[in-house]
């Protein structure tokens, strides 16, 4: 059959955690968004930049042109004045008349006002000596100014010349540039006419220009000295030669450059005014304003990108949450499906569900197993997924009443609402109960569930129970019939005295039989229900057997009862409930006598056999037929033959015996030959030395006699004696009366107190708190045990070695063994001796390898503590020698060394299974543990 509860594989995508998926999407989409924003901004920036650069270049070129034109006009003005004939005439001679001087003055005055901005106008002789100047500055007249640039430049070019900026000595000592030209009389140079043009006027002009172009302009002369800027008037001669823009313009280049001007970037363009003039113009705008539109664009783009990004992130977040919720939901669904399947499969009943068309919707493993079984029986294949299962059920031929079965199936298929429980039996003897009901999904009937329960054990139990009731009823009615019948005869008939006495005897005997029957039955019932506790005690079984034999000797003179005890050099001590064991022995003896009607010897043998004590009761009686032997321990069974009819009995005695022996962890059995007699035997766990009172007494608190005996067995040696108790109450009172050396405590105990309570009480009382307690239990609770202060915690089942180790650790023991300490350092020997002597170990010493071998030869120790580095013969050699001698080959060795061992040496030691303790890691506990283990090994 197919499993309808299928497992669908989740898609690969849904298996990636939603968080990671979200991060991945966010990174990809935000990166592309950023790239897009960056591209658009950079494209726009490039365009704007090109535009701004073009504007700068045109501005600088235009400004250069305007400046050039202005200065050209100044040159022309001066040149036109220099050509005035009256001026030429006035300058023609070296000696000038007053009138001529006035003429010159007049021209100069005119020139000065011919154009605003001309600060001074003056005339010098061709050698540079000042002739006159306006405004009049008599102090400098006659001084030679041939050092001025206007003079040098003019004499170099011969043509009208615009000078570098300089500070004039005339008038208000302004910064000026001068336009100079020769005054010629024909070809004779008669003087030089100069107009000094104040840079502040140039400044005004530049400012106007700059405002119009919305740039910062600066103008430098041929030396690179700042002549004017649009921002402020230079008061000093400031050289801008170092400015790369100026330097480039002076070299005659035009260009655009972006500079870091200190307070933000600047975009500048520079141009030479004219090559012969040698001036330069630099136009600058702050990058911020040049690229203002770019900035605006960028911020817009970035805002949009930001908004988009946020929206995207938000959407992703929502998506991730939705995805996560869905993944969680899917996981939950998977978990629920798995859980449902697990729940169904955990049921021992076959549970399956059919849809309204009869198709299999779901089934558990028990159903599967059942249908497999059926398929094996009938050889039919598994049904298909869409097969009508009702058909198959109808064809099911295992039920004893197939007609009834088919009618039921028909009814179920016809009526989807039918809810019914029906039982059926199968031809193979098994019984089943089927519960079936509609499965509803809301108001709709989604199908039908079948719960198919194997009731075979229950039916068997019911059958046995009713059989038991019938048997008990029969067993009770037989003596009752006798009692009532004879009583009636006594009342209503006159009988002679002998008959009267016989009737009364019979009534008495039958009443007694009835009492025994009831007692045995109740006893057995109680034992079977586990509602009884064994009062465990270690007692001498031989003594008990003696008592019982004596009792039965009196009862029958025809039988010779003999008690044979084997292995009588030590008492045959067992651990058990003395009263129950007495009951057991009495039952066996009573049977031996009853079933030996002809009398004869009845022997009771008792022998220790390993950890068990075996008791056998043999009779020469009628024996048990082989075909009935298997029922001997069954309740109410009585061997039935003509020989046994006269023998009364409840048929419960041996069943009771078996329960008692089982409860003690022993075994019971018999050998019998019909007509020759029977031997019934049982075994009980032996205890070696019980109820000692020495200082090394172990109190075993354990309600399971087999476990207690095993513990006793494991720990048995000449140093230990034992006392056993089954209840916590008794354990506590014994621990107070006569404190044992150690207590082995089970947790599950007979009586009111459990092991935990016992432990707590022992530890709470100062008189018993010091007694080490080893908890031996099948339960958990190591931590709890440690918290309550136990010495050790051992989980059942445990090995003998484990419990011996535990006891050896907590129990001070004298002469546990001899350890030879071999070390050349007396301090180390002393340390080891001190550590081990406290642990009741005898310590001998040797100072080197030779001495060690001598000491070992003299008397072999139980273990060796060996140093590796020693004079004469080192530790490895000692190990070799020990290895070679069969007597010392198995001697446990603990290597105690300060030396760092090589890997090879480690392997060497490991191969010889030598324990290793490095002196650097030395601790007394460690050494003690190693020596303990070595001594246990040696033992």
């Amino acid at each position: 059959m197919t499993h309808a509860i299928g497992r669908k594989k989740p898609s690969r995508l849904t298996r990636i955690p939603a968080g990671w998926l979200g991060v991945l999407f966010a990174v990809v989409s935000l990166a592309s968004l950023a790239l897009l924003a960056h591209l658009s901004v950079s494209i726009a920036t490039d365009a704007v930049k090109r535009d701004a650069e073009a504007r700068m270049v045109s501005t600088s070129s235009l400004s250069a042109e305007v400046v050039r034109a202005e200065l050209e006009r100044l040159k022309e003005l001066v040149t036109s004045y220099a050509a005035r004939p009256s001026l030429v005439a006035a300058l023609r001679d070296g000696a000038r008349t007053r009138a001529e001087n006035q003429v010159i003055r007049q021209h100069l005055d005119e020139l000065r006002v011919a154009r605003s901005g001309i600060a001074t106008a003056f005339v010098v002789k061709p050698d540079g000596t000042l002739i006159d100047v306006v405004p009049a500055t008599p102090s400098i007249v006659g001084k030679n100014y041939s050092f001025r640039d206007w003079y040098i430049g003019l004499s170099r070019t011969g043509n009208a010349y615009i000078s570098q900026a300089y500070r004039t000595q005339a008038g208000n000592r302004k910064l000026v540039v001068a336009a100079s030209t020769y005054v010629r009389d024909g070809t004779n140079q008669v003087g030089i006419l100069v107009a000094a043009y104040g840079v502040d006027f140039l400044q005004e002009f530049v400012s106007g220009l700059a405002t119009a172009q919305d740039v910062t302009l600066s103008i430098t002369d041929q030396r690179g000295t700042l002549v004017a800027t649009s921002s402020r008037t230079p008061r000093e001669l400031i050289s801008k030669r170092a400015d790369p823009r100026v330097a480039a313009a002076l070299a005659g280049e035009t260009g655009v450059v972006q500079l870091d001007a200190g307070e933000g970037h600047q975009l500048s363009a520079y141009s030479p005014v004219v090559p012969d003039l040698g001036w330069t113009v630099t136009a600058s705008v702050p990058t911020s304003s040049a690229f203002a539109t770019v900035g605006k664009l960028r911020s817009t783009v970035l805002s949009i990108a930001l908004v988009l990004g946020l929206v995207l992130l938000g959407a992703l977040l929502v998506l991730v949450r939705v995805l996560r919720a869905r993944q969680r939901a899917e996981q939950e669904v998977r978990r629920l499906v798995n859980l449902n399947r697990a729940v169904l499969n955990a049921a021992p009943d076959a549970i399956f569900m059919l849809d309204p068309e009869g198709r299999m919707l779901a089934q558990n493993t028990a159903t599967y197993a059942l249908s497999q079984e059926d398929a094996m029986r009938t050889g039919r294949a598994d049904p298909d997924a869409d097969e009508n299962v009702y058909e198959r059920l109808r064809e099911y031929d295992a039920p004893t009443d197939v007609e009834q079965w088919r009618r039921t199936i028909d009814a179920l298929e016809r009526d989807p609402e039918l809810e019914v429980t029906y039982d059926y039996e199968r031809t193979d003897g098994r019984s089943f109960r089927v519960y079936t009901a509609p499965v509803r999904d809301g108001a709709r009937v989604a199908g039908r569930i079948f719960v198919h329960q194997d009731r075979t054990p229950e039916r068997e139990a019911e059958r046995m129970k009713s059989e038991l009731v019938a048997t008990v009823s029969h067993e009770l009615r037989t003596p009752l019939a006798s009692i009532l019948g004879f009583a009636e005869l006594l009342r209503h008939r006159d009988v002679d005295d002998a008959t009267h006495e016989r009737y009364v005897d019979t009534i008495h005997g039958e009443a007694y039989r009835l009492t025994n029957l009831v007692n045995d039955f109740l006893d057995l019932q109680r034992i079977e229900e586990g509602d009884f506790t064994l009062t465990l005690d270690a007692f001498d079984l031989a003594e008990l057997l003696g008592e019982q034999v004596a009792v039965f000797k009196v009862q029958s003179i025809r039988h010779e009862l003999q008690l044979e005890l084997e292995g009588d050099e030590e008492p045959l001590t067992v651990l058990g409930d003395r009263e129950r064991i007495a009951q057991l022995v009495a039952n066996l003896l009573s049977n031996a006598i009853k079933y030996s009607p002809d009398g004869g010897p009845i022997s009771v043998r008792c022998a220790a056999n390993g950890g068990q004590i075996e008791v056998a009761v043999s009779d020469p009686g009628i024996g048990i037929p082989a075909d009935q032997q298997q029922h001997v321990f069954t309740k109410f069974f009585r061997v039935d033959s003509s020989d046994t009819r006269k023998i009364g009995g409840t048929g419960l005695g041996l069943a009771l015996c078996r329960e008692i022996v089982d409860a003690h962890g022993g075994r019971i059995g018999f050998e019998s030959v019909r007509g020759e007699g029977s031997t019934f035997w049982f075994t009980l766990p032996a205890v070696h030395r019980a109820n000692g009172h020495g200082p090394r007494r172990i109190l075993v608190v354990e309600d399971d006699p087999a476990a207690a005996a095993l513990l006793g067995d494991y720990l048995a040696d000449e140093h230990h004696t034992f006392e056993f108790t089954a209840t916590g109450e008794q354990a506590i009172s014994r621990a107070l009366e006569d404190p044992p050396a150690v207590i082995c405590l089970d947790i599950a105990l007979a009586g009111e107190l459990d092991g935990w309570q016992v432990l707590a009480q022992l530890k709470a009382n100062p008189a018993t708190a010091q007694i080490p307690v080893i908890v031996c239990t099948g339960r958990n609770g190591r931590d709890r045990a440690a918290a309550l202060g136990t010495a050790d915690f051992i989980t059942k089942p445990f090995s003998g070695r484990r419990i011996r180790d535990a006891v050896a650790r907590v129990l001070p023991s004298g002469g546990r063994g001899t350890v030879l300490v071999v070390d050349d350092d007396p301090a180390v020997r002393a340390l080891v001796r001190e550590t081990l002597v406290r642990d009741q170990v005898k310590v001998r010493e040797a100072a080197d390898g030779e001495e060690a071998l001598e000491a070992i030869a003299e008397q072999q120790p139980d273990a060796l503590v060996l140093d590796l580095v020693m004079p004469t013969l080192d530790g490895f050699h000692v190990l070799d020698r020990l290895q070679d001698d069969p007597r010392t080959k198995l001697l446990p060795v603990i290597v105690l060394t300060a030396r760092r061992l090589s890997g090879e040496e480690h392997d060497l030691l490991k191969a010889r299974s030598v324990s290793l303790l490095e002196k650097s890691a030395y601790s007394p506990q460690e050494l003690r543990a190693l020596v303990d283990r070595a001594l246990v090994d040696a033992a």
Partner: protein
Amino acid sequence: MPPRVLICDNEEVLRTLVRDALAIADYEIVEARDGDESVQAARSCEPDLIVLDMMMPGRTGLEVLSELRSEARFAETPVIMLTARAQASDRNAALAAGVDRFLAKPFSPLALASVVEELLDGRS
């Protein structure tokens, strides 16, 4: 010649009780201790009446009865069934098998005696 009564029961004490109950009249008593013995005893002594215990080792009382009834000479022999099984189903099974009277243990020996007398009278 006194009527012959066969008592079939595996319990000696009950056989004694039946015998003592019938001691008031002059009956010849024959005893059998299990099913097989009962059939044999019936065949050998041809009793006038049989007191039969239901639960016996070997063959049960019912099995003994059906075997005997199959023989013509026992077809009319009165049979009183004694049994510790007192349920109606047991009683019905016994009557169906051809038991004349059914007495549940514990039974009254006086009643048994009168039933025996009555059945033997009816026969004679």
